[in-house]
């Protein structure tokens, strides 16, 4: 049997199209891997083997008839906050433990339309609130590079599944770094597109002005292919942007000669681990050999991005999660005394500790008397951060820096203090506040753990960001390394 798990998404798509192997073969092989590694990694919440094999069989028939889309027959997985009709969507929460969506998210529909076969739904921090995948009702996900460590979060299941080569690509979402941070900690590629580029319809909402769907893959080329298929205008999402999706794959090979790379002074602060910084500096030298120019820039308000985020995101979350009332869907407590008792106990039992913390933080900052001081203040500082980015992109094409301050940390190491956990996203939150496209790619190792390099572009410059990431991956092999035992 061919070792399909070592093939990239692009290779599998091409091999299936050329009919070198069948989707049923690939799907069976990867489903076997998913099952075999589930107890050690806990990357999946639901595995949909029967549905996957049926879809694979249908894909083979389509391919035999000379038809098919860009991803026909390629197995993928969805983060468990993308609604899937007929398959439960839990969001990593007891609240939605038995929720079965009556419709598909647009992302799910588009990827199926492109021919992808879904193997299952991946584990995640509850309602995407977390940076370590430890807040999931279904238990923590473990990092394939070292199972005593976290995979990052909130898209930890998707990241671990791709890093362990259970699937060549998975969907994910990024509200404050939930695609890029786990990509960095798991040694894979993770792309968050521009706010509005990928439809949020059917993506369970956390913080609506920040949430954006994206991809976790093993290379920038795979990210380009998968993103091209899932991006685009959607009338069902009021913040979806009606501009055509460029062919991200077609522009991957453009030379980087003359590319102006901005080095954010604020990214190379004292919080950045010295060994991590060394890997980032080495990567920047690679970019210089590729013809790029390094330019120092400063975003003076960027250090405020974490405090801004921890006002804006909880505020939006407390509003979004008000819908979970035990009436139309989700958990309901036993024997409620009255309506209010039902609301309070259903929500108290259905939500985990971190979700409750954020709902309460949001409730507080939005309450009368505090709204101006916290919420409006945060939105004003958000405007300043946004202006900083706009100004920076007048003199540079992309910004490059670290994705995270440190490599993966131990399970349980940061659960006691929420602020310590929140500071994990110190380098990623800026792109969410300003709605910018950003990618994390592997750029080396510190003590056998992967380190991520972050590339941020201006609005709708996904092609440029992917191009820059791909050029780096053509001359380095960090992204091809597999964790021991998973090659």
């Amino acid at each position, binding site marked *: 049997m061919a070792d399909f798990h070592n093939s990239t998404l692009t290779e599998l798509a091409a091999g299936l199209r050329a009919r070198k192997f069948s989707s049923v073969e690939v799907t069976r092989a990867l489903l076997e891997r998913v099952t075999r590694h589930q107890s050690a990694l806990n990357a999946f919440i639901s595995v949909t083997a029967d549905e996957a094999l049926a879809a694979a069989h249908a894909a083979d028939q389509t391919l035999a008839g000379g038809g098919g889309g860009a991803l026909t027959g390629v197995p993928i997985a969805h983060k468990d906050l993308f609604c899937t009709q007929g398959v439960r969507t839990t969001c990593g929460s007891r609240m939605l433990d038995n929720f079965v969506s*009556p419709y598909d998210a647009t992302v799910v529909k588009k990827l199926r339309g492109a021919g992808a076969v879904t193997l299952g739904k991946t584990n995640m921090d509850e309602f995407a609130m977390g940076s370590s995948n430890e807040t999931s009702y279904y238990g923590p996900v473990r990092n394939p590079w070292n199972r005593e460590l976290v995979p990052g979060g909130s898209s930890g299941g998707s990241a671990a599944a791709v890093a362990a080569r259970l699937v060549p690509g998975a969907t994910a979402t990024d509200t404050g770094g939930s695609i890029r941070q786990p990509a960095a900690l798991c040694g894979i590629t993770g792309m968050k597109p521009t*706010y*509005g580029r990928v439809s949020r319809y059917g993506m369970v909402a956390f913080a609506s*002005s920040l949430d954006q769907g994206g991809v976790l893959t093993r290379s920038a080329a795979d990210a380009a292919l998968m993103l091209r298929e899932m991006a685009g205008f959607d*009338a069902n999402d*009021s*913040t979806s*942007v009606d501009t055509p999706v460029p062919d991200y794959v077609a522009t991957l090979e453009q030379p980087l000669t003359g590319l102006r790379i901005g080095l954010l002074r604020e990214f190379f602060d004292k919080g950045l681990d010295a060994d991590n910084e060394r890997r980032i500096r080495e990567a920047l030298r690679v970019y210089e050999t590729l013809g790029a120019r390094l330019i120092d820039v400063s975003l003076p308000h960027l250090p*405020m991005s974490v*405090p801004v985020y*921890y*006002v804006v995101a909880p505020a939006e979350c*407390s509003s979004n999660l008000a819908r979970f*009332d035990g*009436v*139309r*869907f*989700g*958990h*309901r407590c036993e024997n*409620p005394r*009255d*309506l*209010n*008792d*039902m*609301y*309070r106990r259903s*929500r*108290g039992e259905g*939500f985990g*500790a971190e979700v*409750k*913390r954020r*709902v*309460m*933080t949001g*409730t*507080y*900052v939005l*309450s*009368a*008397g*505090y709204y101006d*001081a*916290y919420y409006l*203040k*945060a*939105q*004003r*500082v*958000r*405007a*300043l951060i*946004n202006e900083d980015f706009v100004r920076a992109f007048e003199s540079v094409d992309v910004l490059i820096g670290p994705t995270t301050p440190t490599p993966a940390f131990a399970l349980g190491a940061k659960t006691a*203090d*929420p*602020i310590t956990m929140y500071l994990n996203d110190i380098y990623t939150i800026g792109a969410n*506040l*300003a709605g910018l496209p950003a990618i994390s790619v592997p750029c080396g190792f510190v003590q056998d753990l992967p380190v991520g390099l972050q590339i941020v572009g201006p609005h709708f410059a996904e092609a440029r960001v992917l191009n820059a990431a791909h050029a780096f991956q053509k001359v380095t092999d960090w992204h091809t390394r597999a964790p021991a035992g998973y090659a």
Partner: protein
Amino acid sequence: MYDFALVFSLHHAHFSRSMALTREQIASIAALARLELTAAEVPVYQDTLSRILDFVGALEACDTKDVAPLAHPLTGLSQRLRPDVVTEQDHREQYQPNAPQVAAGLYLVPKVIE
């Protein structure tokens, strides 16, 4: 029925000072958010919410005079409109299987009016 005053009572002219929330304030916030907390949870949130408020209090140091609040990142976009025509159909039968308690096509909740 809730003591809103408790939530709003905290004088917040000096953000740089430590924001120590009281048990009563946590109870009021939880009531506003419709969250039942266990006795063991209250001190945990008292501690962590206080620390979060201290942490985000750093924003106060930022000069935002004459800066308009930014609600979402795509500043150039205005809300899309569509023709005022019916596009949705009744999906009640599809939706109701997810509900904890239904009868005769209705969603059941504890009695509201005595």
